[in-house]
């Protein structure tokens, strides 16, 4: 009982900001004519979730944090000029972008080119509607929230395609082709991975998923680590994050579908890219990492802070991979999706279905969940090990040190032992 006076479901109870908004709305309902309060509720919810979560995360974690962290990874300082520790850098960036002229190339499809950023932005905002930030803090507690998430997150691909196609630039067209091909491939393992979660929890509502994890005191990541791995890879492919950022591969096709965009139109794409990554992180935090629940800790710590923390933790992994890994080629990415991710997702599905069947049919008690968790973690490690052992690149077979000769001369034949395979 650390702060007994503060956890009383009053408006000042910080654990759930919906208490505050409920107080406001109930007060407003007494003065305002009937019905307006519904509009007001939607507005407050939207603005609050945007102000508390999306915008600060986007600016501080997405722009500043990413640049700062990658800067440290690259042994340089990162932004440190504007404001204390360079914290105002995102704002300075935004001001600069707004002042820049948004060019439209000659021969571009103007209407489509103008529409693309707008279509790109809208779903990013809509995605946060179904993320539960607390027991009552959820904008749209709809039943097929998981499907809603998948449906809405397939829209930005279209916007990116429109952007790439309309700019009348070959690099843009390349980016458009790549993003379309890749999103089709990676949607399949993504959905299959999430299907396993739905199968086990028996619901498609995100709030119920969080409650399920809270009830059994186990996060789904422990039950289905493979699903999280597949989700992470597939979602980073859909979001164009390194190592799968082939649609805007800087060293190959300049900026992909963004090549011809400038000014705030580009800024919208850039900002909303971060928005999507945050939404995907929040979704992963909800589905796999227990959402706003934290093994009972959510009673004391505000749940919305827990999920924000988890989201940022997940986002950090995105930053981390971006700072370290090289990029795959498109054919390797496709082969990876179809030859590795799909079988592993199916394996995960079969495993989970079997366990679910056992659990329900045999009416096993909750402690069996922990056995399942151990089994699944081992299965995940085994699957990854087996893949890298038998299908992978096997770097130990290939010589990684140059041969040394002491005398100049002609061709030195490669000894049979060092030839290796692919």
């Amino acid at each position, binding site marked *: 009982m650390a702060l007994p006076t503060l956890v009383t479901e009053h408006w000042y109870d910080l654990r759930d900001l919906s208490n505050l908004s409920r107080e406001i709305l109930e007060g407003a309902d007494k003065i305002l004519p009937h019905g307006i309060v519904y509009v007001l509720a939607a507005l407050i919810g939207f603005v609050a979730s945007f102000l508390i979560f999306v915008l600060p995360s986007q600016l501080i974690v997405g722009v500043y944090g990413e640049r700062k962290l990658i800067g440290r990874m690259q042994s340089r300082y990162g932004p440190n000029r504007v404001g204390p520790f360079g914290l105002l850098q995102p704002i300075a960036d935004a001001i600069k972008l707004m002042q820049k002229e948004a060019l439209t190339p000659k021969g571009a499809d103007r209407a489509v080119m103008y529409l693309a950023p707008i279509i790109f932005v809208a779903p990013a905002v809509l995605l946060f509607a179904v993320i539960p930030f607390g027991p009552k803090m959820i904008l749209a507690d709809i039943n097929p929230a998981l499907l809603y998430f998948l449906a809405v997150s397939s829209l930005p691909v279209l916007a990116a395609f429109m952007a790439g196609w309309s700019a009348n630039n070959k690099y843009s067209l390349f980016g458009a082709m790549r993003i379309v091909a890749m999103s089709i491939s990676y949607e399949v393992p993504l959905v299959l991975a999430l299907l396993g979660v739905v199968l086990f929890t028996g619901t498609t509502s995100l709030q119920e998923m969080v409650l399920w994890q809270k009830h059994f005191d186990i996060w789904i990541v422990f039950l289905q680590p493979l699903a999280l791995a597949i989700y992470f890879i597939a979602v980073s492919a859909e979001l164009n994050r390194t190592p799968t950022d082939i649609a805007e591969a800087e060293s190959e096709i300049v900026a992909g579908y963004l090549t011809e965009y400038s000014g705030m139109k580009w800024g919208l794409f850039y900002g909303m890219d971060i928005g999507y990554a945050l939404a995907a992180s929040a979704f992963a935090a909800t589905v796999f990492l227990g959402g706003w629940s934290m093994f009972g800790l959510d009673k004391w710590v505000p749940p919305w802070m827990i999920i924000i923390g988890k989201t940022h933790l997940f986002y950090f992994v995105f930053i981390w991979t971006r700072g370290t890994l090289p990029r795959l080629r498109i054919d390797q990415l496709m082969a990876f999706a179809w030859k590795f991710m799909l079988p592993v997702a199916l394996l995960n599905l079969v495993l989970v279905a079997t366990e679910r069947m056992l659990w329900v049919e045999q009416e096993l008690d909750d402690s069996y969940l922990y056995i399942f968790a151990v089994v699944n973690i081992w299965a995940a490690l085994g699957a990854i090990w087996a893949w890298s052992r038998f299908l992978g690149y096997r770097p130990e077979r290939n010589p990684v040190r140059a041969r040394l000769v002491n005398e*100049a*001369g*002609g*061709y030195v034949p490669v000894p049979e032992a060092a030839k290796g395979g692919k």
Partner: protein
Amino acid sequence: MPTREWTGEEVAAAAERLVPGSVARTTAGACYLKAEKLVEAIEALRSSPDTDFVHLTNLCGVDYWDHFEVVYHLQSFVRNQICCLKIEVWDREKAVAPSVVPVFHGAWMQECEAYDLLGIRFEGHPNLHRIFLWEGYPGWPLRKDFLSMPGGLQPGLNEFAGTARRPEPATRLVQ
């Protein structure tokens, strides 16, 4: 052990042995081949095991006012030796030399360079074009008479707002 630089006589002897009648004359460091026998001789020097000049190290043209020389440096890895071959191209207006691209792929770009800057046309080159300058550039910059060529090119910016054309620059003549 440093690379052995073949003298002109040595190269001439080898070339004469492999392709009789290919040598025009020799100097201390280089062997002048007859242009029409050049490709044959270079091919022979490359494939003969005791010469083994498999690597065309350097190819360049030199303008000597009345004629051009094309200089080839060939080297062997296994035998660790280098030699210098030359041909002379006498017609200044229509300077034509045989191309060694069929023998050495590495000559491709170097011949393009020599064509671009000196105007030596290499017959048999698959795609001879101006590699640094644009098609239609007046004159051949590395020729010694470049600045007094017809068309009146002058050093510096010819057209710059407010500047008159400069007087004819003094070119150094080497005879």
